[in-house]
């Protein structure tokens, strides 16, 4: 699938909101790629740095943040772009959708007008043609009777419908990459299912790659090709989705999988990860996960392990990754 260079490549990304404070950076040395048409899930809990990484890719970090590392998109260095150049990349080549579509849609304009404006901002076309195209897009994202809906205001739509509109706007310029930050978190499970199906379908029709930020391992299981697991600003593990679920090579991934409630389990008690995220102001000296890790050894408290290849394409930042196989779980 990835014959040539990846569509998006992130290398050693560091984002520090309080440089010099000794606090752990929000994102600390993150590297991963996304190939054309690939769906990569970045998964982690709050404070893991997953959303900050996405904002960095979109060039939407506040100017006070200290950023280093390289982000290249189709061979182009995104970090060197001027504001002007960014505008042609965002929306046209990289589309975005967020968790709460209400705040991303302008409440005082009908959705049709917002779609039309996006279309015409990037492409010369007549008003009539752009309205036709807008209706087509709404139809493609599964909004019933799209023509009539064009004149609806955002507040007249349900959360799921608004998210569909956001997807339509994001896809309006056929971007090569769609970044979706927790797009289904605020929605009911039935609507979440519909939207995940939709994203999967659209990946085919629009030939777009998707970077999906989520905290939900179920969402990952449903749609991901590849998975990047983040913990406290660093990548704990990354691999194809089957390796992640079949043979996690990081105890955090394993804990995350085990603590996700399972609809088909008759167990009363849930497996948990003890403790909680480290305080970024006073991080543990060694591996950031060591204080919560059931496999931790003395050396884990001393050394902070780097991400390295374990088997095949699977990378893990655990000193004991090799020992972690399905067989010798406790």
């Amino acid at each position, binding site marked *: 699938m990835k014959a040539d260079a990846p569509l998006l490549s992130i290398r050693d990304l560091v984002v520090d909101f309080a440089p010099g404070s000794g606090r752990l950076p929000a994102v600390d040395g993150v590297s991963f790629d996304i190939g054309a048409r690939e769906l990569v899930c970045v998964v982690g809990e709050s404070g893991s740095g997953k959303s900050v990484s996405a904002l960095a890719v979109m060039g939407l970090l506040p100017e006070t943040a200290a950023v280093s590392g390289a982000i290249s998109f189709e061979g182009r260095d995104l970090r060197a772009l001027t504001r002007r150049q960014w505008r042609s990349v965002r929306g046209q080549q990289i589309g975005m959708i967020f968790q709460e579509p209400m705040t991303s849609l302008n409440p005082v304009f009908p959705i049709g007008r917002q779609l039309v404006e996006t279309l015409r901002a990037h492409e010369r076309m007549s008003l009539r043609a752009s309205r036709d195209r807008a209706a087509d897009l709404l139809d493609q994202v599964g909004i019933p009777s799209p023509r009539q809906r064009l004149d609806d205001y955002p507040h007249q739509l349900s959360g799921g419908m608004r998210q569909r509109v956001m997807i339509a706007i994001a896809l309006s310029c056929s971007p090569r990459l769609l970044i979706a930050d927790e797009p289904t978190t605020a929605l*009911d*499970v*039935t609507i979440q299912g519909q939207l995940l199906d939709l994203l999967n379908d659209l990946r085919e029709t629009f030939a777009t790659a998707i970077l999906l930020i989520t905290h939900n*391992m*179920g969402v990952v*299981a449903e749609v991901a090709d590849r998975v990047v697991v983040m913990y406290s600003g660093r990548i704990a593990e990354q691999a194809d989705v089957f390796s992640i*679920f079949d043979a996690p090579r990081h105890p955090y991934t394993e804990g995350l999988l085990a*603590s996700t409630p399972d609809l088909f*389990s008759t167990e009363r008690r*849930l497996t948990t990860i003890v403790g909680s995220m480290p305080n970024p102001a006073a991080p543990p000296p060694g591996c950031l996960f060591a204080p919560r890790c059931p496999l931790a050894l003395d050396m884990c408290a001393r050394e902070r392990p780097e991400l390295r290849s374990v088997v095949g394409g699977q990378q893990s930042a655990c000193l004991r990754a090799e020992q972690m196989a399905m067989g010798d779980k406790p």
Partner: protein
Amino acid sequence: MREPLLRVDGLVKHFKLASSNNLIRQKPVVRAVNGIAFDIAVGETLGLVGESGCGKSTVGRLILRLIEPTAGSVRFAGEDVLAMKPAPLRHMRKDMQIIFQDPHASLNPRLTVEEIILEPLLSQGARPSPELSRHAADTLDKVGLPARYRHRHPHQFSGGQRQRIGIARAIASNPRFVVCDEAVSALDVSVQAQVVNLLQDIKDEMGISYLFIGHDLAVVRHIADRIAVMYLGRIVEMAGTESLFGAPLHPYTQALMAAVPVHHPRLRRERSRVRGELPSPLRPPPGCHFHPRCPFAQDKCRSESPLLRTLAAGHEVACHFAEEIAAAGRNTEASASREATDAHH
């Protein structure tokens, strides 16, 4: 038969909306809760699930009389809660508590943790004393927080810790019944699992009954003894947890279960997603409220509203064609479930 701890019958809540059009005299009415009935036994956990807007949170607040019901009855430990005068009602509140979803909005930012935890007791007339302080420390200990945190303010805690404080407040007065209103929905996965287990431990230790309101079937399954599924203000199915998950009878329950994300990529399949979205409770569809989204809907469903009826022991369902659907669905569901268990091991 012994009377259950809580008995809810014919509970109705209609909210009148302020009309945007003054020419129309009749204000639009939202039928948020429309005739709900269930029992909860001592030490039992009833899960109440449904999509947002189905009225499940309103049910919890009606039972506690945080909102006044339009009609119906709520009996708690043999007493008619809805007929109670303000003073006895206040007194009874120490037996019925609530845990909220949002750990940020549910704690008064101006109070310390100890003040928050003791507030229900102080409200009942207790005076601050060293014993009471010790009780606060013990309660904190019960929810897994160090007692030395008790003079801090809520903003110094993480979401998971705040939720523990909220639980401590709910159990400080030794209640017999607690409404958990989406109590773990806002938490991160690893914290959520911790809190679910904590709630179970507390229940086992204190013999509390829960009404566990949630939208995540997988979470509810782990904690509930029985589950009631709500759709647009009505219960459409109610059964013991194993019975419900083993053989869901209502098409809506089946749809909810099908919508839960798989827990392994190998289980991905083309699934029949439930169509459409929850209709507005302002204009519920006639007949069975679920018929516009139901794959099995027939003419009868469009005109006649199905009543909740008992199909098997302790398994109630409100669907005209539950028997037929159950027979047809048995094969596919069973295979899916077997497949799931296989992949798990």
